[in-house]
């Protein structure tokens, strides 16, 4: 079977209710974006789990590589001054 004939893979993101962000909930195969949306509705929201769906073809996602997590995320580890607890204030100060 040639690659061309297979339905591509799509990632599905569902917003469970207004006020909350879309959240990744899995993937599925579909011929195009319209079918991906319909399939996503049937596969991931059979019990009213969503009010909005995003689908994106999996090949269009760029992901960080966990092997590079060191240089990617460690620079943030020693920047304690980005957190409120880094600053010394007298106990009498209220509401801060």
């Amino acid at each position: 079977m040639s690659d061309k004939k297979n339905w591509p893979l799509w990632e599905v993101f569902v917003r469970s209710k207004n006020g909350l962000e879309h959240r990744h909930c899995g993937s599925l195969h579909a011929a195009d974006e319209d079918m991906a949306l319909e399939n996503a509705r049937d596969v991931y929201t059979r019990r009213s789990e969503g009010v909005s769906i995003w689908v994106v073809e999996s090949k269009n996602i760029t992901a960080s590589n966990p092997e590079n997590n060191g240089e990617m995320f460690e620079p943030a580890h020693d920047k304690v001054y980005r957190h409120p607890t880094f600053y010394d204030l007298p106990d009498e100060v209220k509401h801060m």
Partner: protein
Amino acid sequence: MSEEQIKNLETQFEARIARDEKIEPKDWMPEKYRKTHIRQMSQHAHSEIVGMLPEGNWITRAPSLRRKVALLAKVQDEAGHGLYLYSACETLGVSREELYEQLHSGKAKYSSIFNYPTVTWADMGAVGWLVDGAAIINQVPLCNTSYGPYARAMVRVCKEESFHQRQGYEIMIKLANGTPEQKELAQDALNRWWWPSLMMLGPTDAESIHTEQSMKWKLKRKSNDDLRQQFIDQTVPQAELIGLTIPDADLKWNEERQSYDFGEINWDEFWQVVKGHGPCNKERMKARVGAWEEGEWVRDAAMAYAEKKRNRKEKLAI
């Protein structure tokens, strides 16, 4: 990578799992972990898909609209479970086509229970009550398994399973409280599904091969025998409550163990069905492969249509 480096990575990997950290798709993992997960998750997905066949058999003949919509929704859920699990499996770098090929060629297994026939309406009751009941016992511990996509799929699956079991048990209640003929149907279905349901929880611990490694990776949290005992202890009172008899002359409450003792399981039968000699193995595969092959023109047409739409859009854009 040198052998030493790999050893090192493996030690770190095992330690992460021991600390209850989850493993995600792009993380380094031992080849054996990847293979074992592809095997178990795809086997699980195949079981959900083939599992639709014995119940699909009764949708058009359900005795009322209420029963029909429930059974239809249940079978649709099983399709969903198969899809969650296939997509979780694909995160390990295996394609959907490869997975289907393994199922269709007989290289991959699915749960043996689906190789038994559903001959009366009461079987819809027994399957929901017992087969989904046993599946729940197998699946709940997997919500905490170490591979993230598998654990997340199992959380969704488990949420949906409890309706399956309840709709099955409700069918049994109705039949057990109906006419003598209806009660007889319910008892007959219990007689036929009881033992295969016990077998569904897997070979006895003495015969089970992968257990130790699977325990470490949290692919398994309790032994097959423990799960089976749990299933029996919770199901026997449910049968008694509706006046049905478990077809096991040796079944007896053991005061000391606070558990039921039960009779010998016919493991020859189990292995026969696993090896392909169950009552419906051929029929199930024929239906599954047939659906795939007869659907090919639909899949191709959908791709052709998608391409046509894309081309038209591109032309408009110029």
